[in-house]
């Protein structure tokens, strides 16, 4: 039985069981506003009429059980899928607005300034760590090389720009503690370092919104703590808003300002970590409780609180 049915079945008296999106500061000046996002694959509705806001300067998280449609949301945001329906509005700090669903994927990174990482790491394995970060700065460097013509002639303008790019790469390598391994092939790095490198690579495109797909997957507790610190640093020092998908609740609850919970493509909860933690729908979805029992669980939670 789907959740929407339980929603329609809900009577006004049982209003508590309806999904209440907790209004929050993220609605005031969102970097990203998702409205009525729907993605169908044939008969399968992977994302169903989803709407949420990502607050500027927030760390927001999308959580949900496996197959809930989280990665699909990311793929729609970054242009890898064209959503069946919906509007995705990116508002930059400077006021520029971009409708992401209308842009080809590479322009979303280049112009709308949305960068992402992948659930299964996608580094350029045969290129060095430094080269990975240089590729990320392709667009500004391409301009500086006057679309290659200036670069072939070795103009000073290009060399200055290239040095600047190397400096930025060094800055991030220092941040993620990989400066010593700058000249090693990316595929030779240990797993945790590859994850950090992918984040640094995304940051080298100077995004305003950074989307991370399960950044803590496969990290040990120490690496996870470092990741939290890195994400805070990105938010605080670079003013980049972060949207992450994560299964690791310690990460999510610790660093997120705002959490959106998906289940079967629908939003079942939206609010602060505290709000979400106590939301009976979330508990039901995570514990695999049948929809009929939601009310029951809810009552239990309420009586427990009372």
């Amino acid at each position, binding site marked *: 039985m789907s959740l929407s049915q339980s929603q329609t079945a809900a009577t006004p008296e049982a209003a508590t069981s309806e999904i209440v999106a907790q209004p929050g500061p993220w609605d005031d000046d969102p970097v990203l506003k998702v409205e009525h996002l729907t993605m169908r694959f044939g008969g399968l509705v992977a994302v169903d009429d989803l709407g949420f806001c990502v607050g500027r300067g927030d760390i927001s998280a999308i959580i949900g059980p496996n197959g809930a449609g989280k990665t699909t949301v990311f793929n729609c945001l970054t242009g890898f899928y064209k959503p069946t329906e919906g509007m995705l509005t990116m508002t930059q700090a400077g006021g520029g607005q971009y409708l992401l669903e209308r842009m080809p994927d590479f322009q979303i990174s280049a112009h709308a300034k949305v960068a992402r990482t992948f659930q299964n790491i*996608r580094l350029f*394995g045969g*290129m060095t760590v430094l080269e990975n970060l240089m*590729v990320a700065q*392709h667009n500004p460097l*391409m301009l500086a*090389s006057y679309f290659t013509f200036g670069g072939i002639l070795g103009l000073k303008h290009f060399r200055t720009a290239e040095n600047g790019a190397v400096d930025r790469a060094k800055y991030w390598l220092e941040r993620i503690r990989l400066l010593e391994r700058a000249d090693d092939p990316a595929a030779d790095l240990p797993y945790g370092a590859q994850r950090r490198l992918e984040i640094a690579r995304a940051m080298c495109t100077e995004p305003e919104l950074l989307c991370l797909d399960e950044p803590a997957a496969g990290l040990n507790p120490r690496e996870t703590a470092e990741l939290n610190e890195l994400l805070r640093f990105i938010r605080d020092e670079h003013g980049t808003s972060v949207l992450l998908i994560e299964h690791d609740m310690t990460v999510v609850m610790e660093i997120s300002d705002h959490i959106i919970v998906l289940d079967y493509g629908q939003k079942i909860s939206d609010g602060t970590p505290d709000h979400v933690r106590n939301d009976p729908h979330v508990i039901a979805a995570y514990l695999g409780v049948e929809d009929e029992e939601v009310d029951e669980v809810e009552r239990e939670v309420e009586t427990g609180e009372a």
Partner: protein
Amino acid sequence: MTSETAPDSAPENAAKHKPAPPQTRDLAASLKDAGLAALITFALAAPIMGLHTMSLPGGGGLAIVPNWASVFISVVVVFVGRLLLDLFVWRRVVQIPIGDKWFRRPGGMPFARHAHRLGGVAGPLLLGFTIIMPFLPFSDRYIMDLSILVLTYVMLGWGLNIVVGLAGLLDLGYVAFYAVGAYSYALLAQYFDLGFWVCLPLAGILAAFWGLLLGFPVLRLRGDYLAIVTLAFGEIIRIVLLNWYQFTGGPDGISGIPRPSFFGLEFSRGDDGFAAFFGLDYSPMHRIIFLYYLILILALITNFVTMRLRRLPVGRAWEALREDEIACRSLGINTTNTKLTAFAIGAMFGGFAGSFFATRQGFISPESFTFIESALILAIVVLGGLGSQIGVVIAAVVMIGGFEYFREFEQYRMLIFGLAMVVIMVWRPRGLIATREPSIALGKRKAISGDLVGEGHG
């Protein structure tokens, strides 16, 4: 889910950095192994090769003639060969998968691991040799013609290397651009009376233009589909040239293509010729030597531009595209344009080489631009090692030289060619030079093992 692969990939990475096991025990084992192989060879060779029968004259029956020298030689060959193979080829480190994407493949003979150093030393030596080559005593007409041919293929190989080796796009119709270059020059010369030096850049530009035209519809295809369409394109160009009789001369080809001049000086016997101007005795070799230097310079320009481009954003984007196209797009790289530039620049060098071919031959016909040429150029690139400049040179010398060498055995040429391909692909699946030189480094540039480098998907 990646979290499944994550925990087990960490220990594997740790294991990889462990020091190699001591070599001495392995050497003893290799010697033993080679000795055993030599023993078996002896057992087999002694009766088969060591003893010959010979019928005695006058019907006196058979006599046995011993031939121990050949037995000894084969035993030594087997022993040494087996030992070397065991030490350098078979004792390779078969690495374990890292993450869920990269697998380490066997391979890694010392020669290849030091290939970057080889490039550093052998490159200048080779260049020096090619420069003085025409004046060496053994350089007769035949050798010079052969060298020009080899250099043409080196240039074509370098051009195709941009497309296949750097950008990872499998192009089976590269000869089409070679044909476009050759016919551009021949037709421009025929219809507009233009000279070689004007037509050379035009031929390159036209070929690049054809590269773009082909690229637009085709580059959204990947892998096998791209290969098939480029192959078809190569054939289409050839068949159009063959059938458009009024314009291209069809199967008769175009003859009387003007020869290049040395800054306006013709290589002719007359008073205003090259020889007379410099006060030399006329010799047909002057033109050959001139052509030799011309193709050498063209090839070196190709190499220089490629090396330069590799260090520019566009070249890095090509290589990134070969590694992972989706990641490229997530970083804001317009992959279509990037592929198009690779295609167009590769095609341009093919066009230059084509117009050189036309001016050297003085006669061209569609027969020179068959699929086998594309296959040959691709074989040079793949055997040399995708993306390796010096590898292409070695492969071109071996293949074109080898082809010439086996000219007498016309029927077996393709057989041997195929066999050589199979052997090399088994022995060194990544080509002769399987390392990649980073395009930028903070410290010392360390060559990257070919096992880590992607091959591209289309």
